[in-house]
């Protein structure tokens, strides 16, 4: 019961925050130098089409009415037509959203699991060589510059030894071929996903490892660990079943706190690997002055971040029975 109320309250909060972000974006798009009409209407449209679009977005109306139109349009998913693709922005982005979510969630879950696993071992062997190596390795990976790491991965794994494709998400020939089954297509996507995924995991697991290590060190001092030892349980059981689950909780918090950082990294990774996701679309639209696409891509990313935050919070409450909202 408590959890349900908590989620409801957070949903209301998310709605409020999203509303503020929307409003700020509206103000910025109107404040920026230049003509707001030219920013939302493709200059290459016929005058008749342009007039229809302007009317549907209320661009011929006073600012206040424009704002109401804007709210209505965002709510109904009508966020203009992309200058570059000539299609409704929302269709393009909804097409990209699953790709982003696939790469983003897989990378976060895998790097958190890896961080928890290695951090557990590092803390268990504290002060020994394994610990030192792991801590330094984690620090090193965590501070690598992501776009550069991505380029190096492409250079080494795709260009020098040719294990993985250089760019993209699918190979056209597999997808055109009607004989290729579901398994072949899945494998093809996984093959393309390997490099971006490895890049993201390498960048992210380090901070989780460090969090897990220090939290595990704290946990190992707790009384119930001493009790477990006194009961004569073997070391592995103590480490994996008594200490680790409790020590992993701060990692969940840390995943939540680093979500914005992960989204930045996701956009960079998508761009370098030409992974057809929302982040790449945002970068692309900004460099091509495709304003409707940029605005919508940003709003969708904002929703993704807010929802991901909520998911992490709920997960935390679920994992820690002491937390009741």
């Amino acid at each position, binding site marked *: 019961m408590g959890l349900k109320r908590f989620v409801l309250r957070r949903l209301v909060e998310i709605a409020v925050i999203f509303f503020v972000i929307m409003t700020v974006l509206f103000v910025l798009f109107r404040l920026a130098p230049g003509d707001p009409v030219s920013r939302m209407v493709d200059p290459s449209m016929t005058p008749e089409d342009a007039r229809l679009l302007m009317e549907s977005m209320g661009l011929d109306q006073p600012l206040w009415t424009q704002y109401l139109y804007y709210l209505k349009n965002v709510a109904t998913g009508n966020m203009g037509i992309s200058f570059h693709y000539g299609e409704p922005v929302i269709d393009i982005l909804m097409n990209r959203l699953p790709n982003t979510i696939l790469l983003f969630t897989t990378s976060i879950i895998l790097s958190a699991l890896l961080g928890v696993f290695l951090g557990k071992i590092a803390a268990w062997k504290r002060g020994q060589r394994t610990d030192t190596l792991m801590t330094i390795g984690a620090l090193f990976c965590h501070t690598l510059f992501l776009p550069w*790491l991505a380029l190096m991965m492409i250079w080494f794994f795709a260009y020098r030894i040719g294990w993985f494709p250089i760019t993209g998400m699918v190979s056209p020939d597999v997808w055109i071929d009607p004989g290729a089954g579901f398994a072949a297509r899945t494998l093809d996507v996984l093959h393309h996903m390997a490099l971006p995924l490895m890049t993201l995991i390498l960048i992210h697991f380090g901070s989780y490892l460090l969090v897990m290590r220090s939290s595990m060190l704290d946990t190992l001092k707790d009384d119930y660990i001493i009790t477990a030892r006194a009961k004569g349980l073997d070391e592995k059981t103590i480490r994996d079943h008594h200490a680790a689950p409790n020590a992993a909780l701060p990692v969940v918090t840390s995943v939540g706190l680093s979500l914005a950082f992960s989204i*930045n990294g996701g956009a960079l990774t998508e761009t370098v690997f030409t992974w057809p996701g929302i982040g790449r679309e945002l970068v692309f639209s900004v460099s091509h002055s495709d304003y409707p696409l940029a605005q919508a891509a940003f709003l969708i990313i904002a929703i993704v971040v807010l929802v991901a935050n909520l998911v992490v919070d709920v997960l935390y409450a679920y994992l820690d029975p002491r937390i009741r909202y």
Partner: protein
Amino acid sequence: MSDASLPSPKPENTPGRTRPHWVDRFLGGWEVYRKNTIGRIGMALLVLFGLMAATSFIPQWVDPMYHPMTGVDPHISHSTGPSLRHWLGTDFIGRDIFSQLLAGARIAFMVGISSALISILFGTTIGMVAGYAGKRTDLILMRLADMIMVMPTLLVVLILSALFGQLNIWVIVLMIALFRWPGVARVIRSQTLSLRHRPFIEAARVTGASHLRIIFRHILPNVMPLALLYMTFRVTSAIIIEAALAFLGFGDPGTVSWGMMLQWVWKTGHMFQAPYWMLPPGICISLITMAFYMTGRAMDDVLDPRLREEETTP
């Protein structure tokens, strides 16, 4: 350049009475810091990068063709590998990569430190005010902080550059700072909360000190070490965001930063042919981030005795 614009980090401790206390504390901290291997490595790397930044004006002074932005070797019109004339080779139009690397160090320090100073200034002030004032002020400020904290800074700056065109390097610095204060504010706020009911604050209040005086004269010196610690972490994130922005092609076109160099390698399609060009800027960005991060962690050990004990007992 950047050094001249730096305000003194501790403007509040000028009266003579508190100075010895500060010096003592600093020297004591330095003793602990010196014993920390990670801290020593970080500091050594920072000195190295500092030297790079300090010597960045020398190449172009030797010969204008070594100017990182405008200097072009008259005999070279494509990217060439390392040679005596160009220690790290040249880029696609014959500019010297080594002198670009040195200039990049200067930009990295400039961006990192000035942006971190601004965000620390905001974060510390807002955190202290929120923690001290409590009630509605606290609630509003922290909600604002939460809201900004969930936004991915890089993408926000990206959207702004879409609207306002190419951003000047100082605008980028300011943007990064404006979106990076909430984390600092949260930490400073909780520290302030724990200080608020200490006897010396109560005593100051009883003697009739104003709120501003209590905040800046009594609370600030106590949260200052924590703020300085967070500054090192903000430096890294500012450097990374600027580099990423430049890498994506939205940096200040008038500056040569390491991110910009990587963008040139990437956009001109030299990433497979010119390792001598792709490796140095990437290594530099990664190492300077690591150096600041290591310094920060070592400072953390100095500030938190609990961690220090854990590190020494095996």
